[in-house]
């Protein structure tokens, strides 16, 4: 059973991720009053990219991409989707936090070896942005962990299943709000699409990616979408009893995110930092203080 889960979870996540990418393009097109590509367009792109001859700038350039995709796949195993959570008892939230930063780190290492300033600028923006949203995110997660007195995300989900969603329960309400405020930054969609600003720095870290590198990077992007949303759903929307409900919740969150993405322009990096370190952080800290007061 465990083996089946281990094999099943990443494939599901992959499908959902690609579906999200396609859905994103379709919905954006409709918001733009266009017809839009077929929903399978990302798959076609990936197939095309895999069939193209790519160039490599060195071993780290290759290994970085592979490493980052691999880490995203591993991270899937830590996230409960419904009841499916293969590696539930291997470190819990902290491991998730750390593995979450591995994927961008791998991309950063490989993009760094490309010896292209656009890549370096994109990476510096990416890491800065990560620092920006980790400040409130860490406070939020710590509030959740302190409230439920556990590090294991599975326990958090089951506790919410027994009582009520964290988003609607009193002590974690503000934390949930803060999470919603930083969710676009975590997903890397507009207004926080600073890392791969195609018009400024020609798609940042991916500037030298072509062929199968770009294919892997695209898949990894899909998985990132999946992970960011799944984490939110698990922590604040009470996870789910079974996968369909879970994916339904994720879909809702994602579509809301898409509307934000379509509506807002891109911020500059320091604007983004100023925003992230002001309101979400403030709200998150208040939430944490409330949690502490209730805990006492």
């Amino acid at each position: 059973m465990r083996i089946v889960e281990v094999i099943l979870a990443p494939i599901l996540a992959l499908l959902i991720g690609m579906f999200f990418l396609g859905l994103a393009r379709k919905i954006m097109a409709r918001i733009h009053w266009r017809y839009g590509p077929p929903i399978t367009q990302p798959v076609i792109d990936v197939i095309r990219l895999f069939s193209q001859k790519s160039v490599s700038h060195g071993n780290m350039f290759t290994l970085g991409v592979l490493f980052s995709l691999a880490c995203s796949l591993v991270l899937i195993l830590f996230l409960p989707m419904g009841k499916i959570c293969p590696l539930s008892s291997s470190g819990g939230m902290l491991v998730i936090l750390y593995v979450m930063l591995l994927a961008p780190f791998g991309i950063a290492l490989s993009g760094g070896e490309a010896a292209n300033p656009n890549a370096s600028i994109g990476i510096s923006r990416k890491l800065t942005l990560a620092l920006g949203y980790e400040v409130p995110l860490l406070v939020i997660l710590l509030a959740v962990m302190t409230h439920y007195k556990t590090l294991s995300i599975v326990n958090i989900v089951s506790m919410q299943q027994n009582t009520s969603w964290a988003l609607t329960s009193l002590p974690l309400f503000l934390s949930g709000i803060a999470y919603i405020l930083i969710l676009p930054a975590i997903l890397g969609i507009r207004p926080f699409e600073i890392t791969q600003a195609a018009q400024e720095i020609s798609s940042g870290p991916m500037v030298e990616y072509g062929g199968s590198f770009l294919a892997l990077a695209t898949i990894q992007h899909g998985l990132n979408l999946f992970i960011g949303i799944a984490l939110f759903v698990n922590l604040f929307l009470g996870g789910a009893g079974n996968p369909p409900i879970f994916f339904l919740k994720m879909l809702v969150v994602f579509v809301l995110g898409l509307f934000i993405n379509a509506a807002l322009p891109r911020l500059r990096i320091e604007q983004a930092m100023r925003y992230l370190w002001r309101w979400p952080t403030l709200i998150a800290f208040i939430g944490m203080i409330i949690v502490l007061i209730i805990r006492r």
Partner: protein
Amino acid sequence: MDRNQIIKWLKAPAKMGHKYSLHAIYFCTGCGIIEVPPVITARWDAERFGVIPVATPRQANLFLITGYVSVKTLKAIIRTYEQMPSPKFTVGFGSCPINGGMYWDSYNTIKRLDKYIPIDGWIAGCMPRPEAIFVAVTHLWTLIDKDMADGYKRYRSNYHLYRANQEQLFGELEWPPLFPLEDQVEQIA
């Protein structure tokens, strides 16, 4: 998609990929670029054909030469073309790349672009309408189906000639040859 589409898919997924995801490098050489924004935005929406502009040649497989090509631009065009991963398709847009067009007697523009890089298709006219781009794209599909969009192979096999032309134009080039200049002829296709 109809049935034989799906059968084609299963026969040659890679080829279908090339057909239906043509990512165009967004490279403005001349006035022709004016026509591209309407094409990719809501009015004509090229994305439904899978054609979207991308930022870097590494990610692209379609190269639209939009408008006249000055000598200086040609250098950039050649580098960009060589950086695109093959299979890659080139389309000359407007009459200037074909024969110099209204700049036929300019000292500073290229008259025949395909002396320097291989071109898979031409869009005549000054300016061509955006629909012409869609015609070109659908035509490119048929060429790809018939394996006739083989500009990159021609470039590979006749590289010494192209290189010779380029060097004749520019003098010494500051980047090394893309392919070894010897033993060209035997490796067509």
